[in-house]
């Protein structure tokens, strides 16, 4: 399963989704972890749906974020990406640990 979290500083959960500067992407299958720049952060319109498309392309299954806008929520739902709510400012590792259940 691939997990994504919006982040502005690369360390903590950002407070916005679509205009987050980057996304932390974690894959528990191979334990890979990357910070990918969100190219849609400066879009005039449609930043939320653009970010949802970006996560879909990356094959993300679960988004961990403090909030998503209504259109982004619809796009994520259509792509089968589940949204787990977390708190802005939380350390990325901590926010992931809240959601990821270790496999036996």
């Amino acid at each position, binding site marked *: 399963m691939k997990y994504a979290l919006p982040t502005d500083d690369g360390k903590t959960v950002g*407070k916005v989704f679509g205009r987050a500067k980057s996304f932390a992407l974690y894959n528990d299958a191979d334990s890979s972890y990357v910070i990918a720049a969100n190219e849609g952060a400066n*879009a*005039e*319109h449609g*930043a939320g749906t653009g970010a949802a498309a970006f996560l879909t392309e990356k094959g993300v299954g679960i988004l961990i974020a*403090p909030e*998503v*806008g209504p259109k982004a929520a619809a796009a994520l739902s259509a792509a089968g990406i589940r949204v787990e709510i977390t708190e*802005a400012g939380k350390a990325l590792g901590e926010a992931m640990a809240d959601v990821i259940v270790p496999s036996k």
Partner: protein
Amino acid sequence: MDGTSMTTVSVASGKGGAGKTSIAAALAVAIAAIPGEKCIFADCDVDAANGAIALDAKERERFPYFAGPGFSIKANACTACGRCVQACRFDAIRKSADRQSYVIVPQLCERCGACLDTCPKGAVTMYEKQAGEFYVADTARGPTLVFAELEPGEDTSGKLVRVVRDRAEQLAGEASVIVVDSAPGIGCPVIASLSGANLVIIVVEASVSGIKDARRLVALVHSMKRKAIAIMNKTGLSADMDSKARIMLAEAGIPLAGELPFDPALRAAEESGNTWLSIGGEAGDQVKATIEAVKGVVLSMQRKKLNVVIPKETL
């Protein structure tokens, strides 16, 4: 700065003219007046940016704002084949004065780029188009103001709201409060105004359209899982409307911080360059009590920062 250390309060209404800017200005002035508090007013209602009037602002710095790429046609490369004219959905491409090529009228161009895609000669080029400017201003009433102005024909966007809020966050220190004056409606600029806000103040005009638009805003606020409190404005004109507004808020579970009566004195205060806090009489008392209540919620959030329980006895 990650923007999580300060407290952001967004004032929105759904309907335009409900009293957002006046209430946001009064709140910002009240917070800035507290010793040791710093307040930044982020005017994100860019199509009708009037925070500068409400707060009596004096520009300190200005910066260019680039929305996205603009498009233009190189006259010497254009063969006037007309394909771009066919492709343009906004009728923004016209014959040049010598009729030998086409030109793009910037005020009509929506910057979709269809001309760039269709031109067989590569005559369409992109350039960085300045869409407006944004400003930092000191105000006579305390809060520092960030606002923007757009060139004619340019529209506001989530991006511009983000630019204004980013600047406000850079100016704000650790313990500051940012008051965001949102655009009307529930579209892109409003979503960008509400996103990440610690508290949303929903201004409900006690009228048919005011209640209807506020209800749509409530749905947006709920979908974004933001904490919200409401202020009713222009009450006392119709007991029926007042009661419908109260019921709508109660059903939505939004606590009501106060009701402001319709009173020409409020408008007169603005015409003489003051905020609503300056007036006396019953309306003045209501304004002060309501702003005091909201201020209390904001300050307690600032202290606790997370999971604030808002007293619901006002319902």
